[in-house]
């Protein structure tokens, strides 16, 4: 695992609670909003299971600590998106909270329904970018969620030991978390990739 320069993290009174919201004006029309909300709920919950940080849905987009949206091309942050594949998404380090996905991708919530060769698993990318929002940089461990690349039609959503050790170095451990719980979950990533 790795951190950004200066090891930035969210500094809040314990327990840390961060709110998030999806931009109402920057969503993907072919995705159901309830599917997208479910995906982000699950992605945030994976991280909160291992660190003493709670994520809640903000009442308004403007008030959210973490602001999520789908954008196309040059969207004003100096890091324009490049169309289908290439760069899939990016997020800012703490305590900025901006989290952007490339609207040009063929975002998939279920590979059984989406047969596109270029389909990208939204939940995998969401889980990865939340790692950046929390302060993790890219990992060299290929199996880790924080590895920088993700092939189309691949699902990688379960945190690996490398991800967990990295984020716990920033925030400490969730008292309910046990490393032994990681082992059985991790077989899922590989199984879906083979599928």
């Amino acid at each position: 695992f790795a951190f950004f320069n200066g090891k930035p993290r969210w500094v809040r009174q314990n327990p840390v609670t961060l709110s998030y919201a999806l931009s109402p004006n920057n969503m993907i029309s072919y995705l159901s909003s309830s599917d997208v909300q479910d995906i982000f709920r699950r992605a945030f919950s994976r991280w909160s299971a291992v660190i003493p940080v709670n994520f809640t849905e903000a009442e308004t987009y403007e008030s959210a600590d973490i602001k999520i949206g789908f954008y196309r091309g040059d969207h004003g942050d100096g890091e324009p998106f490049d169309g289908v594949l290439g760069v899939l998404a990016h997020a800012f380090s703490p305590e900025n909270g901006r989290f952007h996905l490339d609207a040009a991708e063929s975002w998939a919530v279920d590979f059984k329904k989406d047969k596109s060769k270029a389909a990208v698993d939204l939940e995998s990318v969401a889980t990865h970018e939340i790692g950046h929002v929390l302060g993790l940089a890219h990992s060299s461990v290929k199996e880790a969620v924080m590895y920088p690349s993700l092939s189309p039609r691949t699902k990688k959503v379960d945190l690996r030991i490398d991800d967990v050790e990295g984020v716990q170095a920033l925030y400490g451990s969730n008292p309910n978390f046990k490393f032994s719980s990681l082992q059985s979950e991790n077989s899922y990533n590989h199984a879906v990739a083979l599928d």
Partner: protein
Amino acid sequence: RILSNSVTVLTAASDVHNATWHDFERFLDAGRGSQVSGMSELKNYFHRFGYLPNSNFTDIFDTDFESALTLYQSKLSLPVTGRLDSDTISAIISPRCGVSDSSQRTALHATRR
């Protein structure tokens, strides 16, 4: 999923990629001293993701680029060959996160608002 190190896999990968990084396949097996038209674009890729500090690039596979390539291969847990082998080209054309791989650079000009 792109796993193998064969050229066949590169072809399969390109089927689903747009033109963004697709052209980088033509640099397959290039090594130090090579001069291939368009190599500066590949150097821009390495610059963008934190492996090359300068932004004024030529089409020559020079020692600076070789160092950057070696660092890239090491960072992405690829075989460290210093050449643009098939594993490396597969990694380069694979879709990825836009955040720099260099932890020395703060991601995307982060500021507190």
